């Protein structure tokens, strides 16, 4: 195992995860993209939809947490408020005219479109994780077992 502080390891991991993709995006942006209009809108819509959806998923996981905690109401209420906050913010920002609206005619259509886009993003990332994790696992399982080398006395 490599030596190093947890912070430097985390920095290295973050740099490896982000820098190559960032470099490719900059290169592609320089070569082929004429306009970056709409990118911020996509980011904001993805953020709001993801926040609401993940809050909903975490609300559901509280039922599992409740098995070990005499079914408390307070955390359920807390996460329910979080979901409501996400829905409220989404509706509020989508109602502000052109701010977050794309090619959809109504707030409801835009919100549903955001949700389907989130599902597509999750699908794409899921396939990517499956390919990378599967490749790594297959390689690990096909590496011959190593003999332990003892030093001669």
């Amino acid at each position, binding site marked *: *195992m*490599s030596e190093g502080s947890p912070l430097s*390891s985390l920095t*290295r991991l973050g*740099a*490896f*995860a982000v*820098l*190559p*993709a960032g470099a*490719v*995006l900059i290169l*592609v*942006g320089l*070569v*082929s993209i004429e306009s*970056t209009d709409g*990118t911020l809108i996509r*980011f904001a*819509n*993805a*953020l709001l*939809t*993801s*926040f*609401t959806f993940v*809050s909903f998923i*975490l609300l*559901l*996981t509280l039922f*599992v947490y409740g098995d070990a905690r005499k079914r408390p109401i*307070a*955390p359920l209420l*807390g*996460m329910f408020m*979080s979901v409501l906050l*996400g829905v409220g913010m989404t509706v509020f920002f989508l109602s502000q005219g052109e701010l977050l609206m794309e090619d959809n005619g109504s707030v409801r259509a835009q919100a549903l479109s955001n949700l*389907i886009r*989130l*599902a*597509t*993003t999750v*699908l*794409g*990332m899921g*396939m*990517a*994780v*499956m*390919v990378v*994790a*599967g*490749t*790594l*696992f*297959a*390689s*690990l*399982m*096909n590496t011959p077992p190593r003999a332990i080398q003892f030093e001669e006395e």
Partner: protein
Amino acid sequence: MEEATQAFVFFWVAGLFVVMGAMLAFFSKVNWQRRLGGALFGLGVLSLMLTPWTLSFSPSSAFGHLLGSLIGPAVLLAVGLYQIAFSGHVPVGRLSRTDRNIGVAMVVVGVLWLEAMHWWVLTPTYPAEVNRYWYIFWPTMLLGVLVCSSATYAIVGLVGEQRQQEQRLMLVSASLAIILMLLGSLFDGPNVDHERFATELLFASADIFGVMVGAAVAVLLFAVVLAFYESQQPVPKRLDPPNQDQLEKASHIIAQHVGGEGEDE
């Protein structure tokens, strides 16, 4: 049935089935609930994939069409990688050499199939033009492969010993993703032009970043809610210190076990 009701039942209720089914199947400890979760998940996915027929009037059915288009390469990749992994050095249930070769062939066909969806005539087309969700899926997957491969390269370097082969593999998959993204941004495919692909690549990065930030904020809020709830709980009752009788009994039991008499070491 009205169109709105049809869309609600066949798409949104099906989507809810997928989410709830996955949650039940993963988290429930009760066997029948896990089976029910699996069944709900399968039913939901099936209903979504049938939307090009059940909801042909709705633009959302393009997502169902994408799911149906991806099922072939996804199954080939998943089963192929499984075959390769479990024909390796596994202690029980090792697959044969032939299974491994079939697995390699399945992975190659799966990758080629996905490539043919961009570079050949297999692009998902619905109803008469390229499926709009394909424009989101493909750049997202390529970016995902690049990010996951390069992160895994770093992780393997940090926690593994003599794992150069795995690092090389991650480097190959990251390079492949980079090449495909650059080629897609420079050259037109038969159905997708390079400018559209490049723009969608930028949008995909915005989507991924937005999803990650939104999820991180939700998880942070979840942690705050739980920490706040736990901090409000009364402190558990502390036991009284042991009395003289209990101490003597404990020392007697300890002496019986650590005295070293009557035991052959």
